[in-house]
């Protein structure tokens, strides 16, 4: 892969409901190179969550081009989009989005399961991922037996277990106390340090500054794009 991991050109997103029609994105040109840790900031209603949805192939843009790892995916149907999601993307959500009746290991295993990875390899990689997020001793716990921070660790393990091209994080610390927030940001920092590309949506400047670059979205357009100064670290 020579090009960028993510490249959107003039991406538009229009939601129509009845006679009303809202243009959530109005022409987004956005490029993420391999190894970047990009934070997307913006007030609510700015379109940052919609952008993340499109980057995650959860929604199709109404216009524009989206290439992920040199593959044009903007027109993919649900079946092909599912393939892109399981091969190229790892998700971390604000509300964790773990399956509540499944154990930590079963949750982490799920993307491998859908990718058709064999049982033995699945178990091995699941264990490794859980150890990487410091939960090697919690594999058989159900989500309700874990703290919020631990649940989000499971979600991070699930996002990296397939070794995706990019990890998309949507307000990953939004539901956490400040201690857990630090833990998760540190964990994402580790994941990034080990070579992962991360795109994270947040409304908090403090959180955003853990990335290498901050992109500001306002009214469906990219408003500013700044590199984070590392001097302070």
């Amino acid at each position, binding site marked *: 892969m020579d090009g960028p991991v993510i490249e959107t050109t003039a991406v538009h997103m229009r939601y129509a409901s009845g006679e009303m029609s809202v243009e959530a994105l109005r022409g987004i040109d956005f490029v993420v190179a391999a190894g970047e840790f990009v934070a997307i900031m913006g007030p609510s209603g700015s379109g940052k969550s919609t952008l993340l949805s499109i980057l995650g192939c*959860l929604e199709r843009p109404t216009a524009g081009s989206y290439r992920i790892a040199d593959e044009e995916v903007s027109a993919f149907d649900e079946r092909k989009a599912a393939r892109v*999601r*399981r091969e190229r993307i790892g998700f971390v959500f604000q509300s964790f989005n773990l399956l509540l009746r499944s154990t930590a290991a079963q949750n982490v295993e799920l993307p491998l399961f859908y990718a058709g990875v064999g049982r033995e390899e699945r178990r091995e990689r699941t264990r490794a991922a859980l150890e990487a997020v410091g939960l090697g001793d919690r594999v058989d716990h159900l989500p309700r037996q874990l703290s919020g921070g631990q649940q989000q660790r499971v979600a991070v393990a699930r996002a990296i277990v397939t070794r995706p091209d990019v990890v998309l994080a949507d307000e990953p610390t939004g539901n956490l106390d400040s201690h857990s927030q630090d833990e998760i940001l540190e964990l994402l920092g580790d994941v990034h340090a080990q070579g992962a590309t991360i795109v994270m949506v947040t409304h908090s400047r403090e959180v955003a500054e853990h990335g290498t670059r901050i992109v500001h979205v306002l009214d469906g357009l990219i408003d500013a794009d700044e590199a984070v100064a590392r001097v302070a670290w």
Partner: protein
Amino acid sequence: MSGLEHVLLALQALRANWLRGLLTALGIIIGVASLVALTAISAGAQEGVASDLRRLGPNIILLDGEFVTLPNGQMTATDRTLTRGDLAAVAQLPAVTAVGRRQLVEMTVSSGRRQTTTILTGIDETFQRMHNYAAAQGRLLTAADDREGREVIVLGSKPAQRMFKGAPAVGRTVRILSREFTVIGVYSTKGNLGPDDLDNQALVPITVAKRVLFGGEAIQGADVQVRTQAQVVPTMDEIDALMAERHKITSGSGEDFSTEDQTQIITAAAAATSTFKTLTLALGAIALVVGGIGIMNIMLVSVTERTREIGIRKALGAEPSRIQAQFLVEALALCVGGGLAGVGIGLVAARMVAKLAGWPTLISPPSLIIAFVSSVVVGLFFGYYPARRAARLPPAVAMRYD
């Protein structure tokens, strides 16, 4: 993901809500159970008809003299109109292989102090052979008994039991209207022909019966046997025409004889129960459909409840077909489980019906397979729509669902 893993996944979801699963499957269980039990009963009844036909003799036309209504309202054939000449003429018809004479009347038969009321039946040897009578004790009537006017009697199992209480009957004498008959045999049980209990009979040679009991020259009736079942109806028409001509009956005046198809009597008796069974069978099918709708309903609820789960699975890369398979397998698991339970309960119910109601039941493996397969079909049919709906949920929307 292998098929087995699909099944395990579905079972995991069902186990989490097993009571609801059980209640959902109840419709299928009841439907399949009633289908299994009712087909067993119905097959038993059909088998009963077939064995009735074997037992009572095939291809037989019942020819009777003029019917009159008794003061008690019952119809009975009289022995005034049917002559020996009539029977000889009928025997000449090309399809007819045998004509067996008979005349019967309800009478009291006694042995010592014990007496019983039975159907005293005067017959000839041909009649006995036509109807597949067999001796359980002693021997049956012979042409010689008839020819030589021996005053002998062959008892049915019921009068024999009532008079002799299980002791050997052969060689004893019984008294009918102050005449004594020697018991020469007891015939094997024959069951019912329509409403008539064929085991409550006593057989005597027809010539003797006419001479000492009934009197008169004409005979009450005869059974006419033809070669094949297909010849029964045309031959009945021929007999009707022949008899009308011999008795100079013109259309308009009442006939002084009647013909009837024995097979029809047997199947008519079975038809009444068969109508009942068709109805209950239909009810079983309806229960199955209602059960299927119940499953669809619960699956739709389940899809709605688990919208978020579906969204998560899709975000993690599950293709729509995977989601569809997951929910379809869940519906199938409910139906297959319900189907198996239904087959089990149906078998027990069939056995209980056989035991308590005394109906014959016949459990055939194909009927079990059909009942089971139909529950699977119901599962696929009613599980398809909810599963498809789950598969089509847009992931972004599903993830936001609470």
